[in-house]
């Protein structure tokens, strides 16, 4: 388990988070540079395990909400989350003791490190997804009835708003509109939790897991080991397909990039066809027309040779890929979890197909 985040740890975390982004979540590049700059200035960020939290802890999610492509152009000031924390604390009259990532996939894995380093608070080893999802309410605390609001949202100009909503779906709806006005990038403090709630509602150990995953990719490549198989094994999953992208269709609906990619099988999968449905993240994989992996389980598309994550936005004709299926955390398999992030939550009619769960593991 990690005890603190140093500069090299952040690079490993960003590589691991790109894989756990399951095709979405945004490029961790800017987030990595920001976290490294904050650590250079303020020193390493202490990491606390969920069972080490004091009972009087007051823990919040710190995240970026908005368009990752805009973040790559309008880079943050770096002070947004500190500002959101101030506004939040003034609103609730309590001091934040720890921050948590809402998602360990994509750029939001590294964003809370900026807040933690700047404010000098520790980060909790865990997150609310164990992967990446597109919307604010799609986190495990929602399953446990923990409200997203009060939510403080701040931009680089110093604007901040506090939202109080009747449920977490309204937080997404109103928050998204505020973010568009902020220039499509905003920083949020939300989902305040006690130590007891964190232990119940959070997926523990995922920052360590993502960091080790990133390290594994670098080390396997260096040692000439098969990177793709190593990654699949580390996630308790398996390679379900190898093939070449032969068709890609994109459409924009309701502010998300949706689409379908078709892959022709190679090697052991020659003659088979894999269809990937995506909406920012890869959500459903169908082999010869039948679903073989669905949300909330993880569908990770990687470069066949390098084992590097390929995002849904970057999928192009001709890519030689391996598709990894890995089990999601058990919290997503509860009725509440499936209602929030199962195939139906994304508008698909397909029934969920559980990927095999390795014996004795509980992710």
């Amino acid at each position: 388990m990690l005890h603190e985040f140093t500069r090299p740890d952040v690079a490993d975390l960003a590589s691991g988070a790109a894989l756990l982004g399951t095709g979405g979540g945004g490029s961790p590049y800017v987030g990595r540079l920001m976290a490294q700059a904050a650590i250079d200035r303020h020193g390493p960020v202490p990491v606390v395990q969920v069972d080490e939290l004091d009972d009087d802890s007051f823990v919040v999610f710190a995240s970026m909400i908005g368009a990752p492509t805009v973040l790559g152009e309008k880079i943050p000031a770096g002070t947004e989350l500190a500002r959101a924390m101030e506004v939040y604390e003034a609103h609730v009259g309590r001091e934040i003791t720890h921050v948590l990532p809402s998602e360990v996939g994509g750029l939001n894995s590294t964003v809370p490190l900026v807040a933690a380093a700047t404010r000098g608070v520790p980060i909790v080893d865990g997150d609310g997804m164990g992967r990446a999802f597109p919307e604010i309410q799609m986190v495990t605390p929602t399953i446990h009835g923990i409200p997203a609001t009060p939510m403080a949202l701040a931009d680089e100009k110093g604007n901040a708003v506090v939202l109080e909503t009747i449920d977490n779906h309204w937080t997404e709806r109103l928050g998204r509109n505020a973010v568009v006005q902020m220039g499509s990038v905003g920083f949020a403090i939300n989902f305040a939790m006690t130590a007891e709630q964190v232990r119940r509602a959070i997926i523990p150990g995922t920052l360590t897991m993502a960091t080790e995953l990133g390290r594994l990719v670098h080390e396997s490549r260096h040692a000439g080991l098969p990177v793709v198989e190593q990654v699949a094994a580390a996630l308790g999953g398996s390679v379900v397909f190898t093939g070449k992208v032969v068709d890609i269709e994109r459409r924009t609906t309701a502010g998300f990039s949706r689409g379908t990619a078709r892959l022709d099988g190679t090697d052991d999968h020659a003659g088979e066809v894999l269809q990937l449905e995506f909406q920012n993240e890869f959500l459903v994989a169908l082999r010869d027309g039948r679903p073989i992996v669905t949300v909330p389980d993880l569908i990770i598309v990687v470069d066949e040779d390098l084992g590097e994550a390929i995002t849904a936005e970057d999928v192009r004709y001709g890519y030689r890929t391996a598709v990894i299926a890995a089990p999601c955390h058990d919290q997503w398999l509860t009725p509440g979890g499936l209602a929030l992030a199962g195939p139906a939550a994304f508008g698909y009619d397909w029934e969920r197909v559980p990927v095999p769960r390795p014996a004795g593991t509980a992710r």
Partner: protein
Amino acid sequence: MRIGIDVGGTNTDAVLLDGDVVVGAVKQPTTADVTGGVVNALTTLLEQVDPGAAPPVIEAVMIGTTHFTNAVVEARRLTPTSCIRLAAPATTALPPGTDWPGHLREAAVFSSHVIGGGHECDGRPIAVLDTAALRTIATELADAGVGAIAVTGVHSYIDGSQERQAEEILREVLPDADITLSHMFGRSGLLERENATVLNASLRHLARHTIRSFEEAVSSLGIAAPLFLSQNDGTVMSARAATELPVATFASGPVNSMRGAALLSGLKDCMIVDIGGTTADVGALQRGFPREAAVAVDIGGVRTNFRMPDVLSVGLGGGSRVHFGDAGVTVGPDSVGFRLLEDGLVFGGRTLTASDIAVAANRAAFGDRDAVRHLTEEQIEAALNEIDRLVGAAIERMRTSPTELPTVVVGGGSVLVGAALPGAGDIVRPPHYGCANAVGAAIAQVGADIERVVSLDGRSRHEVIEQASAEAIERCVAAGARPASVEVVDVDEVPVAYVAGGTVRLRVRAIGDLEVTTHAS
């Protein structure tokens, strides 16, 4: 007629083209001063022309060079540059020069500033331009004697007005400064675009000197034609434009070699395999242009947004070592490289190379064939199969459509490839394949592209694309294209995630034939 020159690390190649026909081709060693090699190549080339015939009328000279790339890679001869970003309060988390290798930052960055300005993705200003800060910086730079400046505004590829206003203000104090504005590099991704802008500003002094000496080399031989430089996308720019945009020459080499192969073969949609001593570079040509890579490209360890051809390099070349073992035969990726002429069996050496296999199989006829008589039919067959498998797999991987395309093979090592390859379509081996690179330089066109994040916002998709296309065509003509020849070759739209409403990132590219007469001096 046109002259194409490729100034490479080892050789300077020059070709003379009459229309699309190669009428002369020479190879000369590259010299340390670069110019000497160019003069030698041109002199030899002109001597090849029949002395009895009328001297050729040269309309244009096109040069492809790695000179500016090398200056960055070696961090030498760069001008310390002041980096000014129009963005505050945004972007202050990562100031200009972030994530650069230290030695290169020291060589190329004099100072870095983030001042008020910039735009949102929907065009609203982030802040008004901080003109007072600009004047203060200009005065400081004047006192320090700094004349290279890079100006980068957030979302300036959507609205470049603040960058232009900043230039005007800087010029009031620094009338002769080399100022590079980032919207010239029109793409989203602030750090990558800014890095390109800074490298460009730091190269302009060197570019002026180098290009002047190229011009002197050309005119010293009595050639009065205008000079152009190859860009990394298969198009050229005028020598004057190149003094302002030297970074656009980065990685023009592989592009020229692919485009030259296309001309020599007469194909526009095909696969190109360029086999040298150590590697085979495989790429796809679409409508006569190399397909571009999607990933960010590092130059000397700096992340940039340059357009680069999508080329797959595999470890197979004329010098690749061949091993026969229990598990079968392997060819490469280890290679004797430039020592092939000493180490290869047919050249009297002791190492079995892919070239030896080609000679043994009668695919090539050089060296001493007796030196490979000991190889069995089965061994030769197995090695040939392995070579064909390696090339075939690379072609299959780089193919951009499900239909089989013809494959053009060029480069000295192309003799390794037989008359057919699995899944590769027809194999085409054009004449003058050794000078494909210089030929590519000679035939370059001009191009321009537009990249925007646009909100459809009531307008039709068609309307938005039409407007961007008209702008791309206008820019292409401004870059030197003959208006009637300009066409839009690519429209690419990607929906922007997480933003409400139909917002897309749109990219339109136009190309056209070079209007030679408008540039005649």
